[in-house]
């Protein structure tokens, strides 16, 4: 995951400006060291660094910089992300502690700094490594507890998300993004048509994480320590977050374990209800799982579009383009009833 500063141009570019940003806020004796760049993310660049000043001991922090700001971006800008992190942190939901937000004077673009939370995020390790057996035993229940607490928050606090396309109409939001990439995928069209024809009635909107799944959770040997990646948050049906969590693409080789390739629906629903959540409507969740497969397919089209168009050229994004058909396969097999 880490790269040496001396060979990482990404980190070299931000070092001086990050130091200046820290000193503007914490004084001239503040310092940074041990910068490393994390793996390229879908919408953000992540740089880890040690922060110290003359009062506190060294603290590991994380810089998140926006890297995808094109039209039809499905991702929230850093400012509302940072506001959400503060809301969640205040509510006791496990998130990295928000430290400060970048501003124009920092010259680092849009982004923010949060505390580093140690643990593992790689799904394959979480589903297979014997060291995480205790964490796996608690995983579904912890997911249920965290989502129930998030969905119980007063959505008025996140009213700034009301105009996000996904808050207004998630199917229309996916359709608009898909159309903007000007690619033809009849399987995605079938998925969108099915969603349109089978749409459930509207529900009372809750604050949704929008990307709550195995891969966006920091887990240590004892369980989930932090929920990452709030750039898809919006207001909507709480079953949407549950459907996305259960979407087949996030089962990582264990399709019979719908909660992140680790746990059962029953474990999740029991914990969700015990922590104030409503009874899980699994029929509704199924609709959102289909939606999740359409959404994930569209996101992969987006990555290939960014690569081919040159805006975000990266080998993994090229691979995403060829991964789209695999998601379409899962989508059609789910619609046919061969996959649950």
């Amino acid at each position: 995951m880490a790269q040496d500063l001396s060979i990482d141009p990404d980190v070299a570019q931000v070092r001086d400006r990050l130091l200046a940003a820290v000193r503007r806020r914490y004084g001239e004796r503040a310092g940074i060291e041990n910068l490393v760049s994390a793996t390229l993310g879908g919408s953000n660049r992540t740089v880890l660094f040690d922060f110290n000043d003359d009062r506190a001991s060294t603290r590991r922090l994380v810089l998140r910089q926006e890297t995808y700001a094109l039209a039809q971006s499905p991702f929230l800008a850093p400012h509302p992300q940072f506001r959400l992190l503060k809301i969640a942190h205040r509510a006791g939901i496990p998130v990295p502690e928000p430290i400060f937000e970048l501003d124009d004077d920092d010259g680092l673009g849009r982004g923010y700094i949060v505390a580093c939370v140690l643990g593992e995020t790689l799904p394959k390790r979480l589903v297979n490594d014997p060291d995480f057996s205790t964490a796996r035993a608690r995983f579904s229940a912890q997911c249920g507890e965290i989502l129930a607490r998030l969905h119980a928050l007063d959505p008025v606090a996140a009213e700034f998300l009301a105009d996000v396309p996904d808050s207004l109409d998630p199917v229309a939001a996916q359709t608009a993004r898909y159309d903007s990439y000007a690619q033809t995928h009849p399987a995605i069209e079938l998925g969108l048509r099915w969603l349109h024809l089978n749409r459930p009635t509207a529900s009372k909107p809750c604050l949704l994480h929008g990307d709550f799944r195995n891969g966006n959770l920091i887990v240590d040997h004892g369980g989930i320590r932090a929920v990452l990646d709030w750039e898809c948050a919006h207001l909507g049906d709480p079953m949407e977050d549950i459907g996305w969590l259960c979407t087949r693409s996030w089962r990582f080789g264990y399709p019979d374990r719908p909660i992140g390739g680790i746990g059962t629906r029953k474990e999740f629903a029991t914990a969700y209800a015990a922590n104030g959540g409503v009874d899980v409507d699994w029929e509704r969740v199924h609709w959102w799982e289909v939606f999740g497969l359409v959404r994930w397919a569209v996101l992969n089209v987006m990555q290939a579009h960014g690569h081919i168009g040159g805006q975000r050229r990266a080998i993994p994004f090229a691979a995403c383009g060829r991964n789209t058909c695999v998601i379409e396969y899962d989508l059609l097999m789910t619609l046919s009833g061969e996959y649950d």
Partner: protein
Amino acid sequence: MSRNWPTVDEIMATVDELLETIVDRLDERDRYDALCARYLLDVGRRELAVGKVLDAQELRELQSFTGESGSLEELHKNLGQSIRAGRYDEQWQQVFELVLAHVVNNVSVSRPDQLEPHHRKAKESTQDSS
């Protein structure tokens, strides 16, 4: 083109050999890129082997299903627009099977290991006979 050595398959195999040789010496991010590159080479090899056959098959199937003529790209685009407009709502199962067959073709090129055994077997027998 067969008079040119190495053949395109051999060129791709050669590049893949290089990636395989160096992948474990790379840091984690470059290693991930190299693994993605090896995956893309695999896709390219499979597409070179069967892509034209699959395209011709899909064109025939689309022409037969829609009764339209045009390029594969045009017919796919028309099919997508018709699905969105609801023109196939009454023929859902038929259009579903057509689209699934084409998705299975694409997966057989991109990630054949992800196909269920009955789709994998059907693909292998189709490609053997072509």
